[in-house]
């Protein structure tokens, strides 16, 4: 640079400092780019980010108790739940006042249902109390009259539950989702027979891993054939691979029911060949085997296609080069071909794993009691016995698990070592 320019900032042609006019130009560019992707951004926000955000929020949200029973919540705040004594008269009076309004708005049942998740019997307690709340006698204490209606109002546990779930946010759904409950002295595990979700999570993970592994074992040779057969044969094979996509998921799942059931085609053939006897037919449906077989079939193309696209990019000269250097067929494959196909394995495995871990319809249809996934529980809490908070907590845990495995994968294999096409 000449010494003339060292005295001040570099100027653009119109005299403004160069830095300023550059950032102005860049800003205009950025705004234009942003406007271009705005519809997409909006779409993603509305269809993806908002629902997931809503779900995560529902898993901790608990406004219902403090909204419907505001006075009770305030009064109950000063009650020591560990003392073993019942709350004082003021609490009962507040509850009576709250319930009067709640009954008018018909919201007392909602509180009952909400509290029933934590302590069974709460729904009917609130229902029954709601029916008689108008008839309180001002001459008697509210406590007496409440306990008259149902003994439960005289139980410390009832009040403990209301107090515990009176805050606006709760970790209660997550606590239930990991088979625990909040006792008076901290978290405690549920009794043996009632622990279902952790088992279901572990089962979901193990079965998903089994499905991913099976897809890999079956898909790898198929993808290899696809990439290495002559054009005409490869195209035919590709059609066979894609054929399942053209058939409804329900049809495919039902077809497996026909094939796998006790009196089904496969058992018939095995009996006919004489491999198994007629009275020891294999149970392959309505259990874990059924889910794994059917899901492997359904998800196989998602393993084959990324593998194929990676393998297609590996020139056959590498294998020839390895052999010319003295490697046997196996060594050439294992040392030269396989490492280069790893990005395809990564992509296929992630795809199959993520699709499979959240699968719902197939396990529901062919899984039986032992072959169900965590998503079947989520569906149950959304549809059959509504408890969206618990469904959301289970969903959040599932999401967390997938993300954890993703990070783990990134640490071990490296996420940039994944090639989807």
């Amino acid at each position, binding site marked *: 640079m000449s010494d003339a320019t060292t005295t001040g900032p570099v100027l653009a042609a119109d005299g403004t400092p160069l830095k300023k006019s550059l950032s102005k130009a860049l800003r205009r560019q950025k705004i234009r780019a942003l406007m271009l992707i705005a519809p997409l951004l909006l779409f993603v926000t509305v269809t993806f980010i908002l629902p997931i955000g809503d779900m995560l929020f529902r898993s901790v949200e608990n406004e219902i108790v403090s909204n419907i029973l505001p006075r009770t919540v305030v009064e109950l705040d000063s009650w020591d739940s560990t003392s073993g004594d019942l709350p004082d008269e003021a609490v009962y009076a507040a509850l009576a006042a709250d319930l009067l309004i709640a009954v008018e708005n018909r919201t007392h049942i909602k509180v009952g249902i909400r509290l029933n998740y934590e302590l069974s019997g709460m729904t009917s307690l609130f229902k029954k109390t709601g029916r008689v709340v108008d008839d309180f006698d001002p001459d008697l204490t509210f406590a007496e009259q409440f306990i008259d209606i149902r003994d439960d109002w005289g139980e410390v546990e009832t009040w403990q539950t209301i107090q515990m779930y009176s805050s606006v946010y709760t970790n209660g759904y997550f606590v239930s989702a990991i088979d625990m409950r909040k006792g008076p002295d901290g978290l405690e595990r549920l009794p043996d027979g009632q622990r279902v979700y952790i088992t279901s999570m572990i089962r979901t993970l193990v079965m998903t891993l089994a499905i991913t592994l099976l897809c890999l074992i079956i898909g790898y040779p198929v993808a290899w054939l696809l990439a290495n057969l002559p054009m005409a044969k490869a195209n035919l094979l590709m059609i066979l691979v894609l054929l399942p996509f053209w058939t409804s998921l329900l049809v495919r799942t039902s077809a497996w029911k026909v094939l796998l059931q006790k009196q089904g085609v496969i058992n018939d053939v095995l009996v006919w060949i004489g491999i198994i006897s007629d009275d020891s037919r294999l149970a392959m449906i309505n259990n874990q085997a059924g889910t794994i077989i059917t899901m492997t079939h359904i998800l196989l193309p998602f393993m084959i296609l990324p593998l194929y696209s990676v393998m297609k990019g590996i*020139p056959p*000269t*590498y294998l*020839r*080069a*390895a*052999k*010319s*250097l*003295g*490697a*046997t*067929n196996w*060594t*050439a494959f294992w*040392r*030269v071909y396989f*490492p*280069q196909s790893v990005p395809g394995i990564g992509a296929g495995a992630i795809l199959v794993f993520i699709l499979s871990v959240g699968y719902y319809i197939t396990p529901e249809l062919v899984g039986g009691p032992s072959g169900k996934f965590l998503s079947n529980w989520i569906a149950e809490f959304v549809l059959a016995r509504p408890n969206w908070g618990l469904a959301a907590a289970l969903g959040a845990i599932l999401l967390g698990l997938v993300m954890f495995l993703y990070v783990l994968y990134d640490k071990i294999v490296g996420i940039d070592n994944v090639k989807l096409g």
Partner: protein
Amino acid sequence: MALDDLKNAYVAFDRVQKSYDGEILVVKDLNLAIGKGEFLTMLGPSGSGKTTCLMMLAGFETATHGDILLDGKPINNIPPHKRGIGMVFQNYALFPHMTVGENLAFPLEVRKIGKSERDDMVKAALDMVQMGDFAGRRPAQLSGGQQQRIALARALVFKPELVLMDEPLGALDKQLREQMQYEIKHLHESLGITVVYVTHDQSEALTMSDRVAVFEDGRIQQLATPADLYERPENAFVAQFIGENNTLNATITGVEGNMVAVDIDGGMKGHALAVNCGGVGTRTILSIRPERVALNSDGPNKADAKVMELIYLGDHIRCRLVVSGNDKFIVKVPNSAGQKHLVVGETTPISWHSEDCRALDA
């Protein structure tokens, strides 16, 4: 070729044929004997079957008919990895997931050579191609020329006696290509290995080879030293393919010893060396190299030519002339003192010696 020759040769193709689809013969009746330590080049246009021959020798394709012998023994049934032949591929085929050092160690590892000896051999091979500092790099981090050297080092590191190269310099720019030609040639001389080299670049073939086999359509058209190929082509294809060449169509009118008298189409008469032509009355193609034509009427074969185009090339001037109806007749005029200065459109006398004019197959 006598069978004796094939028996003594280091590499021999004995009546080899190859067809991929059962309909077309890609290699037709190939007979070729390569001596130990020889640098033999297969030269020919694209699709003439050179790669196929190399692949049959390496064991990646099987001959449809005939035998391939290595050191006197048929190798048809030996799988590629047991043949111990080094190979350099056109796109180098360096393993992208291994470093340069690992690439070179690969052939030694599969041969179960111990770690310390392996390291020494890898180092020696890298030094041989002046790439000693690059052992830790990935192939993708090297330039084309450097990758080429590594591919060469990898094909040589396990000390094969026979090395095959399939257009190894095809992807390099001209300058680098010429430099590598000399380096490969020097390696061949210092290591005493036998090299079978494939190229479609005739100047590359002439520069590097002891002998060149000119391929066309699955056949060897001529197998000779570079000098013989250029100066004594045996047929019109070779004459046309190697170097620059002027052709004139003619009819033979008389045979005198090893010379023939010819009537050139367009009315001119002259004499030519009988190389590969028939008797009196048959058609022939005359081949004359541009540098053998003089711009005077001193030689025994004379003609008048019209100057169509002049291209200045520094050391010489290329003149395109019309001679006997052939408007692609090239003459190279040295850019030296005392040379006649031509002008486009003028008519000039030209002449050539009868020995420089070869009568070939029509």
